[in-house]
């Protein structure tokens, strides 16, 4: 039987904060929860191949369907490529979001997390980050392949990857809000889409504009700074809404 009791050395008692206790020791529990959750989620995700493979497969198939719908004409495909890749990446991330909190909600570990006396900001960050590494990052890595399939010129491929790297983070943070609100419902999938797709409008505008600018050789800084701003804004503010959503889902 493993020992689950927490030894006194890991959690400093704030009442006995003596002169030789460093201030950073007080914050240690918050970060240890962050790392523990990150490592745990990676373990869970990497043991389920589907977690990263299914969104990628989905994206490849939708690109195939788009191509069949639009027609094999290379110029039409290339003209629409940036928009297609962004919409498809957005759908892939959005569809995987329902799983973000669901397993934890079903087995009760989410409730345990919310009972913790520590602030929830970083734990929520850890969950979204782990989910992004498994769903968003593979899309970024595979994006050169999408570009080749749709005939995006070579010089725009790094721009697409960079745009997706920043934008997929925004998609994960915003989508996690909808996931946290719908986790207590039996079927969250379509509802997540209804709630979050309107909020995705700026990401798709700036993301596809970024690629378009790279293809046309226009200056990139304006769209790039907008994408960075969206990422910073959503990373800072979204966890607050996610915490509210999770508390609502647990308390009812």
């Amino acid at each position: 039987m493993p020992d689950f009791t927490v030894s006194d050395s890991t959690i400093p008692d704030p009442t006995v904060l003596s002169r030789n206790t460093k201030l950073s020791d007080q914050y240690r529990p918050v970060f240890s929860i962050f790392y523990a959750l990150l490592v745990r989620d990676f373990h869970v995700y990497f043991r389920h191949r589907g977690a990263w493979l299914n969104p990628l497969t989905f994206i490849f198939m939708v690109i195939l369907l788009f191509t069949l719908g639009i027609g094999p004409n290379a110029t039409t495909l290339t003209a629409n490529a940036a928009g297609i890749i962004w919409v498809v990446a957005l759908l892939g991330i959005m569809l995987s979001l329902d799983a973000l909190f669901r397993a934890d909600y079903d087995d009760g570990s989410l409730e345990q997390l919310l009972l913790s006396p520590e602030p929830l900001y970083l734990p929520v960050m850890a969950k979204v980050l782990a989910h992004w590494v498994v769903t968003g990052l593979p899309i970024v890595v595979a994006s050169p392949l999408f570009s080749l399939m749709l005939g995006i010129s070579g010089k725009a491929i790094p721009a697409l990857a960079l745009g997706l790297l920043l934008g997929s983070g925004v998609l994960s943070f915003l989508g996690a809000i909808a996931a946290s609100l719908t986790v207590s419902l039996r079927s969250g999938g379509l509802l997540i889409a209804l709630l979050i797709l309107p909020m995705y409008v700026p990401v798709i505008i700036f993301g596809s504009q970024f690629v378009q600018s790279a293809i046309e050789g226009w200056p990139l800084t304006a769209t790039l700074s907008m994408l960075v701003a969206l990422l910073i804004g959503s990373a800072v503010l979204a966890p607050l809404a996610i915490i509210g959503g999770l508390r609502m889902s647990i308390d009812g």
Partner: protein
Amino acid sequence: MANWQWFHRLGSPKWLHGTINRWLPWVLVSALVLLSIGVVWGLAFTPPDYKQGNSFRIIYIHVPTAVVALAGYYAMAIAGAVSIIWRMKVADMALRAIAPVGAAITLLGLFTGAVWGKPTWGAYWVWEDARLTSMLVLFFLYLGIMALHDAFQNRQGGSRAAAIIALVGTVNIPIIYKSVDWWSSLHQSASIKFTEESTIAAEMMYPLMVTIPGVYLLFAAAVMLQMRVQIAHSERHSRWLEKYAINRA
């Protein structure tokens, strides 16, 4: 010292129900009077536009609905904030009451915009105008909140979820509007000319100054009617409502 009694009274469904009953006829009548004056004035007594002829007259309905559609979302978000901060039952009811009315008025704004677009631009829907796209996104934001309300069996959970998403939407709406603006300005083709509200002639403007408050009041009246339904639903087991219903019968 500020008197906060009115705020605490707002928290009582019974007081609110009585107040709505007292105010509703006045709000409704003044809305209808203002709208009739504004519409008759706008349709009959303003000169036709030198370029658009008589088709511009739809602005006396279109512009007020568009203004109120956005204001309604912010009213809903304020109700959501009050519900999250003070856990006021009445704020949850307000959120539930405003969502369908706001969605309806947004749809009306979209419809009148499309009707106006046909004679002016030659098409019912023009993607080049950012305002149409933004209004459509606003309509979807309203629908999302209504869907969230419906999805929860437990009313309290649905109300809290809707309050959170309404606040998230409030932060997002300016970003969405600006980004859509930016997008349309990049893709704009030169063949289409837009009419600017700011360059409107004064005599065309005056009826608008009457219909805008008219639509605001109509919106308020519709929300009050919805509020009364929400109060009746949540207080259906209370003694005072039973007494009220018996008195009415």
